[in-house]
Every structure is written in C-alpha cells, then in structure tokens.
C-alpha cells in the first residue's frame, strides 16, 4: 500500500529517519552480525583473535543433552502456554460478547494482569502456589507432596505456564473480543432464525469466523513463548530454570550460558537456531496475514 507521496526531497526524510536508523544499526544490525560471527568462531581461552571453527559450535550445542532438554521444555512451555491463553481468552470473549447486563466491568478487569511484568507476577505466584503456604498448602496437607514445584521439574513447568497464561489471557481476550464484535450481527440473527441456541451459534458460526484471529494469536503467542521478553523474566524469577533444568527454556539457557558460563560462541549458536525459528513464525504470520485482513 503506497500513498501518493506528497513531498519531494531526499535529504529531509533521511534526516527524519536518521536517529532511528542509527539506533537500529548500532543496537540491532551490528549485534545481529556479531551473533553470526560468534556462532562460527571460537575465542581461545587465553585471549588472542577468535578463530573460525565452522559448524563446530553447532555440533557441540547439538551434542549436549541439556540443549535438547531446553528445546523440549521451550516447546512444552510455548505450546501449553499458548493453548491455555487462547482457550481462556476465547471462552471469556464469547461470554462477554453476549453483552448481558453487568458484563462491562469484567471486560475492564480481564485486561489488568497484562500490565504486570512477568518477573513480578512470577514472584507473587511463588507465594500463591507455594507448597508450604498460600493456596496449595491445604491440598498438600491432605495429600502430602501432591504439589511441589521446588522439588519436581514437571510441577515447576506447570507453575511457569500458569504464570504465562495468567499474564497473557487478557491479551488474547482483547483480540478475540474485537474479532467477535466484527462478526456481522445479521449472521448471528440468521443462525438464530435457523433455530440455533447461543452455544450452538458460538460453535457453528462465531468460532469458525474467528479462525484468522485465532491463527494470528497462535503465531504471536508461540513467538512470545519462545523468545518473549517476559518468558525469560518469568522463568528467572519463578524457578531459576530449575529444579534440575525442569524449566530451562531456550532463552534462559542462552543467557545463562553467555553470562554465567561465558560461552559466547555456544550462546550465539543457540541464538541462531532460535532466530531461524522466529523467522519461520514471522514468515507464516505474513503469509496468512492477508486472510486476516479480509475479515476486518
């Protein structure tokens, strides 16, 4: 889409764009190139110029079972987190969209968790879903060791997924509600004339028409789950990647490897794999985004 560009000048727009271009070059392109460089080189432990090692960094990364563990954890985290947020958002959006009296405040309240930073939420949930206090203590009192994220990796993974879902459900809710409200009223009325009840209408008419929004959210949330700013924060402040690497998601591992293990090359190789993954997601998103537009 192009406008009939009104002004003719080459230096004026360059001047306007310059600050952002400089920032992007400095803090985006330069580092992006550095990731590439580091991924294929290795800095000798006692200083000296980095030497080119080809795919050795990747081989080392792929040979590490802990790396594959982090891939599995990330996949589980992103997939479960995404499905949970979309499911909660969808059910709530369907309910609020019926516009029954008194539903307006709910609409306002559901978005609030989105304002909370992942790490802050994570810390609060450490208390809320702690095995010794908060809400789960009573359950544990009845069934000892029923819930202990500090001890079991799987419990810890569920905990971080809960934090993720809590924070993002309001976000999907907003998009799905907007999607539902753009479904033409006449269509729902036609279904009602055909004898569909509210639940039937939701399943047969509204959800199929929401398909583009759902797809869009699926891609966005998966990306968020893999590399989102909050994913790192949630894991770091809730479980610290543990116990026993049970919540060691890919971003967490990259940062740990780089800043605690000082293994820049290994971290860069892992970054590169992740970048490839995001590019695939982005590509999928833009391939299908046109379909999304038709419904707007």
């Amino acid at each position, binding site marked *: 889409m192009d406008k009939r560009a*009104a002004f003719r000048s080459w230096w004026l*727009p360059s001047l*306007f*764009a310059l600050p*952002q271009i400089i920032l992007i070059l400095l803090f*985006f392109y330069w580092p992006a190139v550095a*990731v590439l460089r580091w991924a294929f080189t290795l800095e000798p432990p006692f200083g000296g110029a980095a030497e080119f090692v080809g795919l050795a960094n990747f081989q080392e990364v792929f040979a590490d079972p802990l790396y594959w563990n982090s891939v599995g954890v990330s996949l589980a985290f992103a997939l479960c987190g995404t499905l949970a947020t979309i499911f909660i958002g969808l059910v709530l959006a369907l309910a609020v969209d019926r516009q029954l009296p008194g539903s307006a405040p709910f609409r306002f309240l559901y978005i609030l968790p989105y304002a909370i930073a992942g790490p802050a939420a994570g810390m609060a949930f450490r208390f809320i879903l702690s095995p010794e206090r908060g809400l789960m203590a009573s359950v544990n009192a009845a069934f000892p060791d029923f819930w202990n994220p500090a001890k079991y990796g799987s419990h810890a993974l569920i905990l971080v997924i809960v934090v993720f879902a809590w924070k993002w459900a309001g976000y999907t809710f907003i998009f799905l509600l907007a999607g539902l409200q753009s479904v033409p009223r006449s269509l729902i009325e036609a279904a009602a004339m055909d004898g569909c009840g509210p639940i039937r209408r939701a399943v047969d008419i509204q959800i199929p028409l929401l398909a583009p929004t759902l797809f869009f959210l699926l891609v966005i949330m998966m990306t968020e789950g893999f590399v989102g*700013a909050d994913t790192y924060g949630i894991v770091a402040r809730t479980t610290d990647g543990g116990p026993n690497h049970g919540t060691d998601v890919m971003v967490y591992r990259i*940062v740990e490897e780089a800043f605690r293990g000082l293994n820049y090359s290994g971290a860069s190789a892992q970054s590169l794999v992740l970048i490839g993954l995001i590019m695939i997601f982005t590509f999928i998103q833009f391939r299908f985004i046109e379909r999304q537009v038709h419904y707007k």
Partner: protein
Amino acid sequence: MIQRTPFANALTYGVMIFGFLLLIGPFIVIVSGASQTFQQVNAIPFSFVPQDRLFENMGAAWSRANLGTAMLNSFIMASLVTVGKVSLSALTAFAIVFFRTPLKGFFFWMVFITLMLPLEVRVVPTYAVAADLFQPIRLLISAVTGFEVSVDWNLLNSYTGLTLPLIATATGTFLYRQFYLTLPDELAEAARMDGSGAIRFFIDMLLPLSRTNMLALTTIMFVYGWNQYLWPLLMVTDPQYKTTMMSLVALLPSDNGTPDWNVTLAGSLIIMLPPLVVVAVLQRWFVRGLVATEK
C-alpha cells in the same frame, strides 16, 4: 441479544465469574497477603480476608529493597523509553510514508526486519555493543584509515544504556505508519497548496491529528519500559541505577530467615502498581494501541 435462554445466561455469568476468580484472584491474594502479619500470611489454610497491616508492610518492603531509588529509576527509564519511542516512531513513519524518495523502501525494510529479532535472542552482542559503544566506529576508522583510535564510551550504569537499545525497535513505527496511511492523500496536498512545507505539515497537521495515536503508544510503551527485566539486569551493576524489577530479588525472604511473605507481597504490589494504574486509567487507548500495533 436475541433469544435469551436462562440456561445459557446462567452459564455466561458462571464463565465470567470464573474468569474473574482466575484473572483477578491472584491480585486478591496479593493484597490480602500484603496486609497480614507474618503469622497470618503463613497460616494454612490461607485467609483471603485483608487485614490492617498493608501500609506497615509496604513501608518495610520499601526500606528493605530501597524501593525509593528503584521506583525513581524505573520511572525515569520508562518515561525515557516512552518519549524516545513515540518521537522516533512519529518521525521515521513520517519519512517512510510522506516522501517520494528512493531511500523510502530502504528505510522501510531496515525498520521492518527489526520486528523479527527481539532483544532476548541478540542480548549477548547487544550487551557487548553497549559496553563498548564506539567499537563499530573504531573498526570502521581502522579499516578505512589504518589507524587505531582509542576512544571508548560504555553505556553500563547509565540511563542512556538502559533506554537506547530498547528504543531501537519498530513496533511504534508501524503503529504510526498505519495511522498515517489512513489519512487521505488530499490532506497533504491541500496543505501544500496552502503553502505549507513538509516540516510545517508535520507540526500543524500530523502532530495534532495523531493525538489519540500518541496516547495509545504512550500507554503501551510506558508499561513496556517499566516491565523490562533482563536488560537492566545486564546493564546495571551500580545500586544507584537499580530498577524495580531488579529489586524483586531483595524482596524475597532469605532461605534461612523468617518467611515474611507479607512484606514480599507488599513490595511486589508497590512495583506492580504504576503500570496497573496506567492501564486501568487509560484502558481505552491502551486497548486501541495493542490492537493496532499488532496489525
């Protein structure tokens, strides 16, 4: 709504209340926990009834984690990120949309690609750049002239370092571009016929017209800036520049000390409050901005 059936209505209310418990419940737990004594907060079962010690606990948390400095720093950082993003986005989008220049496509793609790589995956080299900002320039100079120059400037422990790398992304630019594209072509042409140049058009027309847009972006960017975790963690070693997210650790009860979670919860409540207030008060613009930035 057409065809109200009692069963479906009851189910709808049930779902909405369940959603309320699910999404707002944690806030209730935090607030009640933060207002209890340390015995009450550790009681089994947990009592949802708020007590009267909220401000006391908040005070304790405030001094324990030195929240005064942290809140101020977070506020400065979030404000700088917001102002920087909003102004740069407005300018860059203006350059991309309203000019006929061969550089237009170049600018667009250059900015567009940044959408693909969030800070988290290139955090290591970005950190390296921030720690030694002039490295690219030095390399350029030595490559071109053969001279080694030794200027350096590191951004560690500074507001510049906290904010600049976060401003260097494209979300806001696209929000503005989207908005500019909805303006009719004739608006700029009419302004030109009236004798207005590009800069005048930007100030007289685009700035006032994009007020809602600006508000939407402001809410989003404030929340984004306030909630940054990983980047300040790397950039700041000097306690003077600590942000609230970094104070979270200090709020945790120590492993062998008293489990005074009431203070921890009170502290996290303080930290959560500013973005929560922004979103609650400016919700209309916030929602509009959210929906617009992603499309």
